[in-house]
């Protein structure tokens, strides 16, 4: 199968150089070609598995348990100002 690598890369928010795209295209096709063997398996009426033990999402009381650690948590951010994350301007 031919895969539109550029489109998938944009969905993934990864810029690919022409070289990378040229290499990844055939590799993705070969991986997808391999997994296509799944289509030969009869799965009519088989429920999909999302969690290996079919466990339900647990609930907890809606109470705050965290303390305010903004400074520590923002210490690993590329750019902050006055406690806010800074990114390039989105709206002119």
């Amino acid at each position, binding site marked *: 199968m031919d895969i539109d690598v550029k489109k998938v890369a944009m969905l993934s*928010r*990864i810029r690919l150089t022409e070289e990378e795209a040229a290499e990844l295209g055939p590799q993705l096709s070969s991986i997808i070609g391999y997994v296509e063997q799944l289509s030969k398996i009869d*799965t009519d009426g088989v429920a999909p598995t999302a969690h*290996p033990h079919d466990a339900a999402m647990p609930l907890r009381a809606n109470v705050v348990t965290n303390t305010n650690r903004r400074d520590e948590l923002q210490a690993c951010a590329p750019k902050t100002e006055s406690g806010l994350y800074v990114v390039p301007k989105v709206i002119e």
Partner: protein
Amino acid sequence: MPFSSLSDIQDRLNSGQTTAVEVAQLYLDRIAAFNDTLNAFVHIDPTHVLAQAEASDAYRAKHEARPLEGLPIAVKDIFCTQDGPTQCCSNILKDFHAPYDAQVITRLKEAGAVLVGKTNMDEFAMGSSNETSAFGACRNPWDTERIPGGSSGGSAAAVAAALTPAALGTDTGGSIRQPAAVTGITGLKPTYGRVSRRGIIAFASSLDQAGPMTRTVRDTAMITAAISGHDSRDATSVADAPEVDWLAACDAQDMKGLKIGRPKEYFVDGMDAEVRASVETALKKCEELGAEIIDISLPHTEAAVAAYYVIAPSEASANLSRYDSVRFGHRCENPEDLLDMYTRSRDEGFGSEVKRRILTGAFALSSGYYDAYYLKAQQVRTLIQQDFIQAFEEVDVIATPTSPIPAFKLGEKTDDPLTMYLSDIFTIAVNLAGLPGLSQPCGFASNLPVGLQWIGPAWREDIVLSAAAAYEGATDWSNKAPATFGGES
């Protein structure tokens, strides 16, 4: 001493023959001597290691020793630790310092362990050879031209060469068991939901599980006892998991009447003949010890790799979307706009295997393809799980080779991603079904270690440990260590 088991070191600490500081220094000296050759550790802070050891000796002087008191344990670079960097061997997390400890790290500290450092791994745990690490490949102590397996290759190499007596790894499709097998050590992937995933950098959330890599079966039990248990802050941690008496399971060591399943799909053409022979010999040994070997079939085995390479990349593409260079991680220089910032930062930060998986996952989840790939793979996952459930109606435990081949050479499989993926053919189904799996050494193929894999029913690590301990007690494979690093081969 360097090749001693954790429990031997514990005995010596308990009897006062040595101290945690002496033990830590011994391994720090070995790391200083051998890490340049192996590249097993990507971060080590000797001062901090010795400080922890001193604190442990001081604790022991005043209190009763905790379960892992003074014992050195290295951890894969995937575990968040407040001390030192946590980089997942990726440039996108270069110099990242985690603001909190992973739950298993907290548990190791509470048990008195001395954390030795961060071990090398495939970038984001995506790989079977440790060659995708942004910090360079790690080498196999049995032959430094060969891979140590992956993704927990650094942990495996470090234990095999006795740079640490034990390490933690994570296992999404075999990343504890396959490296353990090809480096001749023991590794346990517990049942999914047994060990908290909080603070472990996520790859594929429905498959990832942390576990120990050690010299002996008992050592895996000691560590799993300390790190397992419900964590309310990890939604996939199972609250009412049946408990295991970890050490008692290792002491049981009785194979009489044990029904061992031998799945025909795991003994196939194309696998290494010496690997196959070693595992067959191991099964004969089990028979001598009183076990009954029963031929079984797990008919959907062949589909496991295909299902895995839809499910794992799909979950990875979702998990790795968090690396947006806003809250943490690498940001490109002078982004033109927001989109340029996202796309260029991610291009620069991720290595090629990680990109390959993100793209595979994004494709499988994309509009028009979801049903054909992701949903289909999850249905096949159900069938794989049912295969095991049916098998366990007939047998107590399943034994297979861990890897179809011994350690291959560095660079041998890097050109063809698909061939690399097939090296996990015997470990992947266990993750899809969420079962416990253990690999232990059972011989050599071309002078390279071979692993025997035990697979148990969900939550029955006790059966796996008991069988593995019995086999270990009746053979000498776990005592073998690479001569180049001072071991007895």
